[in-house]
């Protein structure tokens, strides 16, 4: 059985031969042309938000220029935002490059990351605090999230057609260490339906749909399952994971799971890192259901990803 076939068993909620390690069984297919954020150089994104690279922290990606805010009243968003047309990109070229970089297609699953969901996008455009306060102009906020979902759905169509990806990861951090950023009810009012539409569109195209959210999102995990989100990536242990696994393990694939707050420490020993991988597999990987890896996808500390992969490969046998 190939890594790819083994990973497919997890998506199908069947028992895999071993715990698929994300870094080994899947290949991220990059789309820098979709300018959500310049990743490794200074520059503006498609929406006009300025991003910069921190020369002191070359391992980090770019961040929004501190203090930037395009506008502070979301009711005016249409005066500032026009959505770029995905059709304007040279998809033939992107498809060709994908083929070249995804050499091991037989053995790995390919995925595309939507670098920012609507929540993160608003926070980047307006500034985090303004973006959070904008949640209370709920109607206009919903308007934006819906328009944004349409834009991402258009992307999915091209990603499937020209890149033939197996799954998409939507990156939207709704949680922090202590809680959701907004009440579960407000989340349902604003994000649930657009998220359902994106998941549905993705599945209808024949790709699996994974949502990445850091932090504590336990109160809405059931909602995600209900609306057809097939996988949750990040899966921080600030959530009651044993309970969530017991309740939704037969419907929801857990992805990531290895906590960078444990592994990405300069004072972490090799054994600390290996132990964290075993914790992740013990709590989330029983009888399958886990695509294991760092919750941040790529660790910010050198050497950690290799250790995670090594321990997961050794320990993750069924």
């Amino acid at each position: 059985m190939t890594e790819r076939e083994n990973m497919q068993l997890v998506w199908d909620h069947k028992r895999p031969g071993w715990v698929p390690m994300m870094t080994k069984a899947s290949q991220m297919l990059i789309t820098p042309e979709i300018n959500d954020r310049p990743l490794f150089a200074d520059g503006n994104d498609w929406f006009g938000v300025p991003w910069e690279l921190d020369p002191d922290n070359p391992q980090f990606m770019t961040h929004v220029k501190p203090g930037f805010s395009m506008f502070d009243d979301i009711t005016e968003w249409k005066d500032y935002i026009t959505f770029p047309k995905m059709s304007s990109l040279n998809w033939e070229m992107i498809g060709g490059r994908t083929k070249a970089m995804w050499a091991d297609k037989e053995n790995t699953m390919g995925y595309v990351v939507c670098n920012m969901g609507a929540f993160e996008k608003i926070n980047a455009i307006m500034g985090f605090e303004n973006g959070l306060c904008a949640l209370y102009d709920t109607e206009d906020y919903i308007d934006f999230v819906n328009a944004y979902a349409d834009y991402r759905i258009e992307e999915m169509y091209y990603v499937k057609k020209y890149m033939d990806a197996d799954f998409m990861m939507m990156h939207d951090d709704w949680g922090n260490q202590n809680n959701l950023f907004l009440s579960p009810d407000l989340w349902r009012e604003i994000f649930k339906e657009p998220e359902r539409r994106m998941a549905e569109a993705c599945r209808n195209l024949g790709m699996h749909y994974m949502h990445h959210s850091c932090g504590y999102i336990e109160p809405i995990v059931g909602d995600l399952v209900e609306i057809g989100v097939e996988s949750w990536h990040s899966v921080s242990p600030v959530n009651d994971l044993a309970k969530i696994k017991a309740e939704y393990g037969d419907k929801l694939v857990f992805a990531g799971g290895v906590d960078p707050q444990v592994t990405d420490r300069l004072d972490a020993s090799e054994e600390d890192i290996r132990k964290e991988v075993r914790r992740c597999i013990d709590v989330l990987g029983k009888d399958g259901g886990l695509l294991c890896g760092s919750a941040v996808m790529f660790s910010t500390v050198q050497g950690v990803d290799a250790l995670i992969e090594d321990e997961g490969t050794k320990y993750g046998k069924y």
Partner: protein
Amino acid sequence: MELLDQISENLQKGKAKAVKELVRQAIDEGIPADTILNEGLISGMDVIGAKFKANEIFVPEVLIAARAMNMGAALLKPILAEDGAKTTGKVCIGTVKGDLHDIGKNLVRMMLESKGLEVIDLGVDVTAERFVETAQKEGCQIICCSALLTTTMGVMADVVKAAKDAGIRDQVKIMIGGAPVTQAYCQQIGADAYTPDAATAAEVAVALLKG
């Protein structure tokens, strides 16, 4: 007093305009500025802090309440200054070098301000030296450091060391916090206090100032 209750209630709902109008009305009615501050604005923020600590409300609700508080407090500031009112303490706060996460730090600042403390916000990406220099120059009794990354929390140990080296360690309390920080880490680096949330941070700061 009904008007003060109204101020508190509107503040809790984040109704900045209403708070501003009610504060103006209270001033016009001759209610002393420090009474309006304490029994209207601060008492409203106390409720917000308690609910946030109990995870009953969420970050945006605290933000809009704090914005309403600031609107009201701006009207009171000149009067309080005239009255010669003194703040109860001075704090400098920042997110440590290499780290840009600032919402938690900002919430701590808002909660400290809502306790009537004077806060100097150094922003993000703040070096250990800058924390200590500011504390020295401005006479801060407390330094508050926020770190959200395991890779930057070590700077907090540098702050403790820099305060020692500058000879001010016995004059200044050092508080630390942020997602990866724990009580054990606080003890390990010899800082004075850690709290898991912003409301408790403000309570602890007030307690530390009382000595």
